[in-house]
């Protein structure tokens, strides 16, 4: 991402990182109205036309911006005390639960908390937007009552003005970049990356790319604890690295805070990802002080220089284990189509580039008007962090723990009557149908057979279901049970990598052999 050529000549690391101007000097220029502030888009054009050396000399600050769904967001609230007072143990705002593991009338409302009455259609993100909009919010709380806090129930309405504090505090915002998503399966997937059409039907991606704050200073030379930023239309601060901060892999994140009371519903938007959940769109803009040539060069990084992996969300595994379908750039994704397996696949963003541009322009305006000054961070953000997965240390039941291996199969040419007899004799309901190579080609249930016998069908091939839902033996029972419920079926063949039937699992097997999540066999 870091380019080594500077205006046609090579510079040593010392020359690249030699300080051109300090934050204090920049602030003095802002005070006098002499500072040169440009947006990241303008910086890219300037470096293209005049080279990085001249850009570094002329420009004091580059403003970046991003506007996307940031699930790890929320707001700390203080409601004040009622009379008689209550030590709230459970609390809801518009039926959305608020975390109450803190003091009596403090609470944290997370962006992804779901309404207990409206489910996916309303949640924490929407309450935050409604608070910022000045709307009335229903507050309900319960308690067990104590000598000092005797009240056990409270129901009232509040607005943001009634709150002592409403502090937006987001543990992970502003991802530097994000894996794009596609879907190899034959059904529509509804994910946190939006609607993914079957058979690589589309690609979705997120992030502002060349406008993204962390892409503009990937070496963390200017960003740190105490950096003043544009947050949700108000003033905020970086208060540290975000959770899952993984800077060495190019996946840096930020933890930020700011006073919700100053923010605007234009830059904080509650959202619903269909059949996934709710979130909050957050607008963040960060000023990048051009302190040296290296920062000038990274501040001019373009979409085509920022790599993105397109991953297959059709495999329900850990994000880092998802198969990479293709490596592309933000510029490829923004073009509207990417070729996958010889086919032009439509691609579109989930985060708003238009709003990201607007954020970078508003921040530029604030600085130009002398309403926003830069801060020197008290500590820069870490450049090394390992992002570990969660290891399952207890034994988890797998398909191989409950499946029956003495599976009976049939052939497509078998006679319906004979097969029906076999099912009755063996007392089973599901019969996988295999070809000569023993590969799975269909399935027949006792219900299919009953219907076939009532009609005049003779061969199994005429009545079998050809699109068979299958499982692998190392899959977790939890995932398999969800798949069976989703397709409304009571049994699935277990297959190996080459689609040979090696067993069968039924809902009966799962309920009989598993007690309290542990196998009894």
């Amino acid at each position: 991402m870091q380019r080594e050529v500077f205006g046609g000549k090579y510079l040593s690391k010392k020359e690249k990182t030699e300080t051109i101007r300090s934050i204090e000097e920049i602030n003095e220029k802002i005070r006098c109205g002499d500072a040169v502030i440009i947006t990241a888009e303008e910086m890219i054009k300037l470096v293209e036309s005049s080279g990085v050396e001249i850009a570094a000399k002329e420009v004091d600050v580059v403003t970046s911006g991003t506007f996307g769904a940031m699930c790890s967001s929320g707001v700390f609230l203080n409601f004040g005390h009622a009379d008689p007072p209550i030590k709230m143990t459970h609390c809801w705002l518009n039926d959305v639960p608020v975390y109450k593991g803190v003091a009596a009338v403090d609470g944290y409302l997370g962006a992804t908390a779901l309404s207990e009455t409206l489910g996916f259609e309303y949640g924490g993100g929407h309450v935050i937007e409604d608070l910022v909009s000045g709307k009335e919010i229903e507050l309900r709380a319960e308690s067990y009552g104590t000598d000092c806090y005797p009240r056990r129930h409270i129901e009232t309405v509040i607005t943001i003005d009634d709150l002592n504090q409403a502090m937006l505090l987001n543990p992970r915002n502003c991802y530097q970049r994000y894996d794009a998503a596609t879907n190899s399966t034959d059904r529509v997937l509804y994910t946190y990356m939006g609607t993914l059409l079957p058979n690589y039907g589309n690609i979705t991606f997120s992030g502002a790319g060349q406008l993204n704050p962390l892409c503009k200073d990937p070496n963390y030379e200017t960003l740190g604890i105490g950096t003043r930023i544009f947050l949700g239309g108000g003033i905020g601060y970086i208060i540290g690295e975000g959770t899952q901060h993984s800077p060495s892999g190019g996946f840096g994140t930020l933890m930020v805070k700011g006073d919700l009371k100053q923010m605007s519903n234009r830059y904080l938007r509650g959202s619903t990802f269909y059949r996934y959940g709710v979130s909050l769109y957050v607008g963040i803009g960060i000023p990048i002080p051009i302190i040296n040539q290296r920062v000038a060069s990274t501040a001019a990084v373009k979409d085509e220089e920022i790599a993105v992996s397109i991953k297959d969300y059709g495999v329900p595994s850990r994000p880092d284990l998802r198969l990479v379908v293709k490596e592309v750039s933000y510029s490829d994704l923004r073009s509207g189509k990417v070729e996958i397996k010889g086919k032009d696949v439509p691609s579109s963003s989930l985060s708003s580039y238009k709003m990201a541009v607007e954020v970078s322009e508003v921040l530029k305006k604030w600085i130009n008007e002398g309403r926003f000054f830069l801060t020197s961070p008290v500590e820069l953000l870490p450049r090394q962090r390992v992002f570990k997965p969660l290891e399952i240390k207890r034994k988890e039941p797998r398909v191989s723990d409950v499946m029956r291996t003495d599976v009976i199969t049939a052939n497509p040419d078998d006679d319906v009557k004979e097969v029906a007899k076999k099912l009755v004799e063996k007392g089973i309901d599901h019969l996988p149908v295999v070809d000569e190579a023993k590969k799975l080609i269909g399935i027949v249930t006792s219900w299919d057979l009953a219907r076939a016998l009532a009609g005049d069908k003779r061969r199994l091939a005429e009545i079998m279901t050809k699109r068979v839902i299958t499982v692998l033996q190392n899959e977790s029972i939890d995932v398999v049970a969800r798949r069976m419920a989703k397709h409304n079926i009571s049994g699935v063949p277990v297959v190996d990598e080459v689609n040979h039937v090696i067993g069968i699992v039924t809902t009966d097997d799962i309920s009989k052999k598993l007690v309290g999540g542990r196998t009894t066999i």
Partner: protein
Amino acid sequence: MIVRLIYSPKVVEKPILAEVILKTGVPVNILEAKVNAQKGELVVSIPAKGKTLEKILGFFKEAGVTAQKFTKILQIDYDKCTSCGACISPCPTKALRFEPDWTLGFDEEKCVACRTCVTACPVRAITVP
């Protein structure tokens, strides 16, 4: 042209749509269908213009079917829309797109009212009346 066809109880059992297709040779596509013994309501896309379209609508009228033209298929509330793009790539007919300034654009001609965008929109800015 997207049209809503309302069948009265008297005609609900007649194969009117099939007859119209056979008579005119126009491949009318059913986008949505709610039919029971009492009444029927279909939303269809008629790939025809001018006289042919008027002729088809005439056939429906003669057969006792009320045909309402969809003037606005999708409504995009631009006060809510952030132009994020979440509706664009899932659209099967490419009726939604970015304008050069990255604002969401909509091409009514291409829309088949499938509602994929309605659920894909994170801020519920798209509705089908």
